[in-house]
């Protein structure tokens, strides 16, 4: 009974949140419009900047803005962890006082730091750069801060851990799962069978990795679509995250590569001897292009999806016309539906291609 109540409450909360969310933003907008109409003195400052909003959503941050319906914006300050030439430096991002333009300078551990967007640079070294693109790498410390994306990733992994814990618990000495296990088991079996088909008889040792990758990508994709904090992040649409996943796939593939795999790359059989070096060159290149394609595919799909949805929503505030919300609302719903498909599809494609690469690496050639 209690559970049912919570279920309905959650669904209605979700529904209300959408309407309130948009209302909230429009309320924020109103003074801006008013000032714009009355005094034309600072139009560029008050103007709604869609590109900045989208960029802000897609980039990382040292502050965590907790956006949730009914709740005023809460800002959490996350720890900044820097590796400087004078050792580890840790302080709270509160010290920047919300500044992202490099105005506030923080002095810690014998160094001065300032923040330009999500990039922390030395204020006492090299030059003052307004445009972060001009900052040379040497002019900043290594940044191991627990940023918004790190928190989001930890959250994703913890939720996944919880789900898997309950999935495992639902089996408890029984053969059939219950509850959340009903949702998870078909997916687990689906991935396992896919691995079996693509890797071959020695598939079993790769299944845990493939399952972890699949569920991490799937959960990140899906949580990234929930439009309020602590979700609505952009993890798999971040090329660094997909880069790490692709590198892990690369390492596993080449560590497991057997003799036949390396012969095919370095001395391809069935090719005229004059061509062998050239084919080998292409093959060596393909070792890297395969995970590279994995990285780009996942990143581009999720990144593009988030960008398009945000673009459609920001169109409302750009045009400020009563007809636009209907059109862009419809488009947003359409994109959301297709993003839901993409969330599953990209998680599956990444896992499938990883499995195929593993299969190539351990396949015993029967020549």
């Amino acid at each position, binding site marked *: 009974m209690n559970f049912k109540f919570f279920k309905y409450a959650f669904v209605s909360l979700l529904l209300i949140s959408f309407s309130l969310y948009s209302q909230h933003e429009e309320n924020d907008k109103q003074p801006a419009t008013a000032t714009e109409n009355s005094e034309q003195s600072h139009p560029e400052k008050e103007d709604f900047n869609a590109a900045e909003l989208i960029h802000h959503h*897609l*980039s*990382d941050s040292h502050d965590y803005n907790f956006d949730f319906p009914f709740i005023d914006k809460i800002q959490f300050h996350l720890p900044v962890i820097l590796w400087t030439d004078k050792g580890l430096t840790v302080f709270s991002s509160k010290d920047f006082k919300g500044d992202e333009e490099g105005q506030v300078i923080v002095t810690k551990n014998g160094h001065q730091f300032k923040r330009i967007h*999500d*990039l*922390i640079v030395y204020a006492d070294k090299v030059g003052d750069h307004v445009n*972060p693109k001009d*900052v040379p790498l040497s002019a*900043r410390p*290594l*940044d*191991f*801060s*627990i*940023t918004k*994306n*790190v928190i989001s*990733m*930890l959250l994703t*992994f913890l939720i*996944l*851990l919880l789900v*898997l*814990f309950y*999935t*495992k618990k639902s*089996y408890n000495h029984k*053969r*059939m799962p219950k509850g959340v296990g009903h949702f998870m*088991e078909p997916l*687990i*079996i689906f991935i*396992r069978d896919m691995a079996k088909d693509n890797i071959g008889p020695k598939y079993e040792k790769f*299944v*845990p*990795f493939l*399952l*972890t990758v699949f569920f*991490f990508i799937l959960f990140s994709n899906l949580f990234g679509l929930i439009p309020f904090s602590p979700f609505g992040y952009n993890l798999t649409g*971040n*090329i*660094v*995250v997909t*880069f*790490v*996943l692709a590198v*892990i796939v690369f390492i596993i593939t080449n560590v497991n590569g057997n003799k036949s795999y390396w012969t095919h790359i370095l001395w391809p059989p069935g090719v005229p001897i004059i061509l062998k070096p050239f084919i080998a060159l292409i093959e060596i290149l393909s070792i890297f292009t395969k995970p590279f394609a994995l990285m780009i595919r996942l990143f581009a799909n999720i990144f593009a999806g988030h960008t398009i949805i945000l673009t459609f929503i920001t169109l409302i505030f750009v045009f400020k016309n009563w007809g636009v919300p209907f059109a862009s609302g419809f488009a947003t719903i359409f994109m959301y539906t297709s993003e839901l498909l993409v969330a599953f599809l990209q998680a599956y494609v990444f896992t499938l291609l990883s499995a195929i690469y593993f299969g190539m690496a351990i396949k015993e050639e029967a020549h």
Partner: protein
Amino acid sequence: MNLLHPETLVFWTTLFFLIFFFLFVKLAWKPILKTIKEREQSIEDALLQADKAREEMAKLKSDNQKILNEARTQRDNMLKEAKELKEQIINKARKEAQTEAGKEIEKAKRVIESEKQAAIKELKNQVSELSINIAEKVLGEELKDKNEQLKQVDKLVSQIKFN
């Protein structure tokens, strides 16, 4: 995007991924996959057993059918034999009865014949006795006087023919 400070996410993603990968393997993937595998094995075994049982049943069924068919043919044979036997017996009985009846009839005929002969004989005897009696009576009446006696004698004498 963290392109300007990629080390942040590279570090944390790698760390989290490795930590949680081993956690998941230990806590979830191994036991879950094991359970699923065991279950599939048991299902396969059960199916195989069911197939076996079905085969056995089919065999038993066909055996039963065979036995049934045999029994049926046996029954038919027995019935046929019985029928034949019955007919044989009936025929034999009929024949025997017929011969017996024939004999009886023959006997009866003979008895009847002999009885008839005896009866005829007796009848003859009686007739002769009766006729003698009648003749005595008639003759007694007629031969009361002498004349009559003589007449009669004459008559009889005249009737006698000599060969």
